[in-house]
């Protein structure tokens, strides 16, 4: 069941929270939803889950509009809000029972679903405790359990791993990946490594506008049209090597790395590669090439470029 966001806009007063955003999430796909604080991620997710009405545009879940038939849409969505609101005075198992009932899980299957969620989310020892007595990480698990209790086609998760310890984060990521094979998952996160590890595709928004929609690899490539390699060359003097590197036709810039004097970072001209030339040069001069690694731009840098330049462009 695919989710398509179509020209969605929403403003609070004069401030535009979401400004004409469109993207799609297909079945069997996990999409990471990124953006700085206040970019409009949560607002978009609230609109998808029918907690908020859009001002312009529409969201369709399995072809059904959230404005025309919210009841139908709600049946297929599992939602974990960022603030993870729970009835603190209720025991875990009673709460899950309540959510299962209200989601319309058939009576005969409720027990089975609760047990499965308790197992999957690791709540076995805590199931009879009151939610308010649990630690933040366990409450987060309860939040995940309630979102998945009716085995929804679409999962909308607003920062699902916040408050979890590293082991739990790995477990939950695996769980999300497993679910994402058959279901449609949209998750927001601040942790870029997490998004890279779990998501098939990344959507980045900034100030309510869509700035990128691509796979992590493509995003990196897009941002990096010039090849950068790090090389270490031995058996020659530093000055000689430096000059020889600069003499290569395709090399645009040679950066001396301070810590290891024999290491250089070489940026090639746009669309050109210098790796073969560097190797040949070393062979000709009798130097030894002990390291050559392509320098990949980190997703963090791509993210910064996309969201910070957007900021400065406005000034």
């Amino acid at each position, binding site marked *: 069941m695919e989710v398509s966001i179509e020209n969605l806009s929403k403003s*609070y007063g004069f401030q535009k929270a979401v400004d004409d955003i469109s993207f799609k999430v297909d079945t069997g796909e996990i999409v990471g939803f990124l953006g700085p604080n206040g970019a409009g991620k949560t607002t978009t997710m*609230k609109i998808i*889950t*029918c*907690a*908020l*009405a859009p001002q312009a545009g529409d969201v369709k879940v399995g072809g059904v509009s959230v404005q025309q038939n919210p*009841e139908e849409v*709600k*049946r297929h*969505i599992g*939602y974990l*809000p960022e*603030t993870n*609101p*729970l*009835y*603190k*005075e*209720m025991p875990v198992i*009673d709460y899950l029972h*309540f*959510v299962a*009932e*209200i*989601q*319309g899980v058939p009576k005969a299957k409720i027990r089975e679903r609760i047990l499965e969620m308790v197992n999957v989310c690791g709540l076995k020892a805590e199931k009879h405790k009151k939610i308010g007595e649990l630690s933040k990480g366990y409450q987060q698990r309860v939040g995940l359990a*309630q979102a998945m209790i009716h085995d929804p086609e679409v999962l909308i998760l607003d920062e699902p791993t916040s408050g979890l310890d590293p082991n739990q984060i790995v477990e939950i990521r695996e769980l999300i990946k497993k679910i994402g094979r058959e279901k449609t998952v949209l998750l927001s996160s601040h942790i870029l490594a997490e998004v890279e590890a779990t998501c098939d595709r990344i959507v980045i928004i900034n100030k309510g506008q869509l700035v990128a929609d691509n796979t992590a690899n493509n995003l990196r490539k897009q941002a990096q049209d010039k090849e950068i390699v790090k090389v270490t060359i031995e058996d020659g003097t530093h000055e000689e090597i430096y000059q020889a590197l600069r003499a290569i036709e395709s090399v645009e810039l040679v950066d001396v790395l301070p810590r290891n004097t024999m290491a250089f970072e070489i940026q090639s001209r746009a669309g050109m590669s210098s790796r073969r030339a560097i190797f040949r040069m070393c062979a000709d001069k009798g130097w030894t090439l002990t390291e050559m690694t392509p320098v990949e731009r980190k997703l963090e840098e791509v993210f910064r470029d996309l969201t910070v330049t957007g900021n400065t462009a406005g000034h």
Partner: protein
Amino acid sequence: MNKIWIITKRELRAFFDSLMAYVMIVLFLGFSGFFTWIFGSDVFLVGQASLQSFFGISYWTLFFFIPAITMGLLSEEQKSGTLELLVTKPVTDWQIIAGKFLAAFLLICITLALTIPYYITVAGIGKVDHSAVLMGYLGLLFMSASYISIGLFTSSVTNNQIVAFLAALFIGIFFHLIFGLVGGSSGGWFASLLGGLSLSTHYESMARGVIDSKDVVYFLSIILAGLLGTELILSRRHSSN
């Protein structure tokens, strides 16, 4: 209907889990019992086998207790954000409102049911006007439903329980007392209009054992107005927040 009942069940459990229900029941039975049997114009002083004094005192105790029951129904859920999660489940605003209304109403029903021994005792003492007692209880139920509806409305307006409580009392006191006082103390069409809006007039006519369709329509209108107001506030929160 099923969805309404699911919400009602949860609210009722919350009432009893938080001890709210027990405190309410004990205080209500204590107050009404004290004034019905022991103090003031009690059954023995009046010397009649009737529950008039009980209905008189319940009229006031429920007036104060009901806002305490309803104050958290929506305000707490808005404050903690659970309402936002609830509206993403396949339930309508009306089902949420009806479920919560029903939960508070059932709590009042349980409380009033526990006073049935009073009736049995009085019936043992002398000849009781059974229909008057029945009408009296019916009047209390109608009155309770009206104040629950008002309390639910004030609870939807704010995130603060205390504000919801005081606002419900403030709106309630007009129906409970002020309209009646003003309507009775001056003349003219406006005064008679206010007198007609007074809840006490309608309640008293019922407590005397007379049922008039006018009274029923009056109570039902207050209930409906409160629920409609609540729905209006909830749906506006959807589109603006």
